[in-house]
């Protein structure tokens, strides 16, 4: 629900980083905060516990500058990863324009990933939003760890694709980020669409900007449609 303020000539878009606990959502924001020029971003606000676990959310505004007369800004939010903070997770999704799901690649965290993904679908549905129609990307974080699951396993578990019923969308669409792979394709006679995915090591920043850039572009595109 991006708000376009014609009076102050501003467009603000809300991006939410979702995912299991300790998966690297806050680390993504911290990297962006440290790398983006200070005049292009605001303060990083963290409502965290004493042990630095996100209690309510982290928040970071990033300015894109003035485009065609409109000051364009992205508001980056993370949600708490821990399940018992579900009430606050749900609140943060209100008015979301784009979602990044940060998955923990470690094989031991597969169940937590699946649970968080299901929880994301549920919480979106409770707001009346449909994850399959809004800008959505998946980030597989911690790719550097020796116990990381393979991409194939992660994609099968977390991003297997949703059916495409709209005939106009039933077109083979290459994945611009992975050669030889497809975002929309026919599998066993059924058309499916998957969210774009990225590999990342948020601690070092690998893949952090690729993910953010991809979801931002999808959100900007949705403004015009």
């Amino acid at each position, binding site marked *: 629900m*991006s708000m376009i303020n014609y009076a102050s000539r501003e467009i603000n878009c809300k991006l939410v980083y979702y995912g299991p606990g300790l998966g690297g959502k806050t680390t993504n924001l911290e990297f962006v905060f440290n790398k983006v020029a200070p005049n292009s971003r605001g303060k990083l606000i963290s409502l965290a516990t004493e042990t630095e676990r996100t209690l309510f959310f982290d928040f970071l505004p990033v300015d894109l500058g003035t485009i065609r007369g*409109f000051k364009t800004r992205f508001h980056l939010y993370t949600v708490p990863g821990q399940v018992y903070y579900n009430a606050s997770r749900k609140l943060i999704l*209100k008015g979301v324009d784009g979602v990044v799901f940060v998955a923990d690649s470690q094989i031991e965290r597969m169940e937590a990933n699946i649970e968080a993904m299901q929880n994301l679908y549920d919480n979106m549905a409770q707001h009346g939003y449909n994850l399959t129609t809004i800008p959505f990307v998946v980030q597989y974080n911690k790719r550097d760890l020796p116990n990381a699951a393979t991409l194939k396993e992660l994609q099968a578990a977390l991003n297997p694709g949703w059916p495409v019923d709209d005939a106009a969308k039933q077109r083979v669409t290459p994945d611009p980020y992975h050669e030889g792979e497809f975002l929309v394709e026919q599998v066993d006679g059924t058309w499916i669409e998957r969210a774009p995915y990225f590999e990342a090591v948020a601690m070092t920043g690998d893949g952090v900007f690729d993910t953010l850039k991809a979801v931002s572009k999808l959100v900007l595109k*949705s403004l015009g449609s």
Partner: protein
Amino acid sequence: MAGASSWSFREEDSNRIHVILSEFLREANARTGMIVDRTGQMVAIVGEEPSFDPTAFASLTAADFSANDQLARMIGEPEFGSLFHQGEKESMYLADIARRVILVVLFDNRTTLGLVKLRVRQTVLDLRQVFEDMFNRGTADEKPPVETGFLGEAEDELDKLFGA
């Protein structure tokens, strides 16, 4: 638009809000009146310019209000229509407007909570009318928010900011 419904805020909306809030601030002797959207975006600031970061303030206000909404439901209330945070010198009063935006009033010892509450009632009704008009008019007659060329330029800026 994908996701939830979007809304736009025009020059004339801004003017109506400024008139209503300026009058209220004068009558209540309050310092600043702000309108924050429930998703955490600052819509308007009237009166004394705050010394803090309004973007961060707006996101925290929306979170504060949403959290209290849930608390209200837990104790069997549909909502808390207003909230009051009292400080030693500075205080703030928050009121719901049409379930979509929040009025935030900043005031200090030059006035009292009683006076703010007394004056805010009519202000809330007046603002509700402004926002209901705004939401009801829809976006059909709206010029497209982004003209041709916006996307290309925005993508260039993204590449500059986050690396190509």
